[in-house]
């Protein structure tokens, strides 16, 4: 086995071993701290392996190594394999996941330190399971393994959202997330079946895309349905805000940085397929643009700091999807990586605040910059990165996304719509993020915020690391992108870059005026109806109706069919058997002699049969 494959296996199997160990070994799990230590150790090993891989191959275009084992065999033919595939994309994605995962696991140590020991151990068991699943997804050599890992991360998401399962709202949110993503995952499954029927395999390389021929559009569309669920795209995004019922570090890892990005990663992985599917990509661009602006609008009216960030995540994922839809894979993928760092940072910083004030509501914060300077500083760095302030990571990736859309719009005018959406969304993003900054960290402290204080080293170290990355994933990576991928990366001042920055500055200005100075702006009152619409959760309600009317009716029909048709057939065969048996039992006379005659008859018949056959 090559070094690359070995390192990949270490990354995948280390967390799995820990998860299984904690799953079967209750006493170790219930020590809490021991379980956490094992999990963190696996995360460290995973990080080392991932960094070694990324260091050697992160810019590699070609496949470095793909080690696979035969998994499913039918009729002597291999249907599917499992294994690890190392190339530039999987190596760099692995490193992103590893960094964020380790940060989150360390952060959780302190964040959840008040939990009962058994729950603490359970949390780390699921963290390890998630890390395994995510790595298996990233390193998947084919779409079938990716699908399995996709479902596994979905399960981990369900388990971790419902971590406080005694809380009804958390349990409900977990079920909702599971339902919505499963509904979308049907698309991935159907797509895989179609792809297997057409090509006889589950690959995602150029050859597979060519083999798909005309069905590439259908298949990629099916895949994109799954992406919409996993990456919280409109209108399947409704589970993501509710998922904030989970512990904040979980939101940072699963519902901001990695798991929700798995949808985008699927498209990056299957890019040869999506590249050929013009129509699917147009649909992607439109959905991405809609999500970007819709989620950003809803984020404005949220009062819960985590919900703001959740809608923001949905909005940013919309950017990535739009960029991919415009045909620029690198732009989407680059935004994915930078977003992973700064959104994880924002969530962890928010977690630090929540840990201090014991509330998610912005009204319970305020003036925290003086009490918690480190948290405030890192949150502001994250905000600057997210809003696309020049110099920070988000600026470069958002700029690339906008450029991609602009290039696309030159070819296809329809793409002006997502471009406009993304530009406006950039302004909205800037507004609601700075609003959060001003409300939480400046102004008069609330009662709860009065005695807030900074957490320990376990809380602050991940923040600092991610803050560094939120800045550092900008210029250096940008330069490397140019050299390694030959991508047109612009440092020059372009009109679209200026437009994006202006939108961001407008948003900042509005936030300063409204929430820092406490002033007012002309026309704000006129926007109140829009705010009411955004607050009304119309999409949620629509889904609820669809669920009640559609699914329940369908279920009632299926139930009727099962009760009267299927059960009826079963009962009918039972009755027939009883009647037949009643007749047949007369054969049993209970007399010994009769049985001897029967045996003799059997012997003679057999002998006659043999004679006839041999003759």
């Amino acid at each position, binding site marked *: 086995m090559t070094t690359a494959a070995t390192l990949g296996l270490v990354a995948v199997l280390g967390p799995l071993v820990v998860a299984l160990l904690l799953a079967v070994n209750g006493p170790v799990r219930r020590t809490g701290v021991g379980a956490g230590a094992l999990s963190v150790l696996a995360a460290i090993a995973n990080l080392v392996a991932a960094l070694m891989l990324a260091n050697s191959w992160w810019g590699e275009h070609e496949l470095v190594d793909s080690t696979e084992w035969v998994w499913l065999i039918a009729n002597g033919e291999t249907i599917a394999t499992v294994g690890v595939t190392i190339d530039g994309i999987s190596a760099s994605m692995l490193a992103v996941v590893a960094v964020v995962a380790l940060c989150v696991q360390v952060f959780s140590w302190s964040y959840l330190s008040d939990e009962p020991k058994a729950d603490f151990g359970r949390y780390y068991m699921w963290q390890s399971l998630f890390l395994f699943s995510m790595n298996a997804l990233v390193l998947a050599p084919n779409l079938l393994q990716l699908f399995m890992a996709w479902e596994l991360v979905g399960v981990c998401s369900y388990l971790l959202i419902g971590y406080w399962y005694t809380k009804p709202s958390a349990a409900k949110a977990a079920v909702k997330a599971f339902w919505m993503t499963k509904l979308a995952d049907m698309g991935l499954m159907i797509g895989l079946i179609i792809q297997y029927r057409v090509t006889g395999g589950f690959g995602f390389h150029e050859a597979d895309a060519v083999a798909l021929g005309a069905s590439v559009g259908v298949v990629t569309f099916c895949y994109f349905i799954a992406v919409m669920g996993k990456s919280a795209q409109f209108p399947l995004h409704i589970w993501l805000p509710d998922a904030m019922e989970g512990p904040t570090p979980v939101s940072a890892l699963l519902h901001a940085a990695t798991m929700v990005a798995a949808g985008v990663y699927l498209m990056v992985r299957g890019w040869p397929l999506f590249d050929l599917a013009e129509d699917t990509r147009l649909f992607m661009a439109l959905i991405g643009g809609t999500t970007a602006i819709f989620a950003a609008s809803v984020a404005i009216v949220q009062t819960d700091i985590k919900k703001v960030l959740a809608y923001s995540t949905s909005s940013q994922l919309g950017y990535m999807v739009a960029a991919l839809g415009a045909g620029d894979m690198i732009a989407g993928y680059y935004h994915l990586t930078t977003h992973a760092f700064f959104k994880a940072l924002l969530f962890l910083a928010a977690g630090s605040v929540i840990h201090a004030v014991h509330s998610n509501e912005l009204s319970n914060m305020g003036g925290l910059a003086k009490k918690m300077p480190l948290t405030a500083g890192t949150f502001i760095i994250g905000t600057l990165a997210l809003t696309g302030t020049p110099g920070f990571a988000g600026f470069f990736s958002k700029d690339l996304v906008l450029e991609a859309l602009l290039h696309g719009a030159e070819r296809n005018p329809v793409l002006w719509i997502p471009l406009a959406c993304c530009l406006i969304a950039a302004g909205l993003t800037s507004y609601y993020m700075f609003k959060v900054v001003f409300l939480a960290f400046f102004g008069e402290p609330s009662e709860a915020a009065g005695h807030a204080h900074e957490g320990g080293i376990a809380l602050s170290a991940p923040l600092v690391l991610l803050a560094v990355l939120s800045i550092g994933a900008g210029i250096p990576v940008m330069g490397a992108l140019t050299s390694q991928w030959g991508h047109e990366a612009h440092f020059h001042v372009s009109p679209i870059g200026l437009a994006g920055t202006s939108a961001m500055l407008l948003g900042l200005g509005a936030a300063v005026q409204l929430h820092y100075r406490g002033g007012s702006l002309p026309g704000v009152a006129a926007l109140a109806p829009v705010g009411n619409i955004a607050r009304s959760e119309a999409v949620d309600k629509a889904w609820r109706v669809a669920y009640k009317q559609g699914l329940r009716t369908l279920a009632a029909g299926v139930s009727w069919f099962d009760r009267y048709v299927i059960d009826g057939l079963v009962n009918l065969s039972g009755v027939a058997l009883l009647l037949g048996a009643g007749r047949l039992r*007369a054969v049993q*006379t209970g007399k010994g002699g009769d049985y001897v005659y029967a045996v003799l008859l059997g012997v003679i018949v057999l002998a006659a049969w043999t004679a006839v056959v041999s003759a």
Partner: protein
Amino acid sequence: MTQVVLTIAAVLFALGIYGVTTRRNAIGILLSVELMANAVNLNLIAFAQTLGSDGQTFALFSIALTVAEVVVGLALVVLLYRTRKGIDIDLASDLRS
């Protein structure tokens, strides 16, 4: 020669069948079964005469098996006698509906 012995064995076996089907008491049936087993052994040895000694080995096994059968058969007869106060096999006709 072989044909003659086989014929004798077949007649012996037929007598066994007659006994098994007509006898009413369990020991009578057991005796008839012994007749049939004996006919089978006779066949085996008749064939061994022309085909080699393996037939005789087989006949030895068969005899030993017959002994085992007699042991269990008699145990069943005793049980029948004990539970039904008689060894007429029509006493044991619970299987009839």
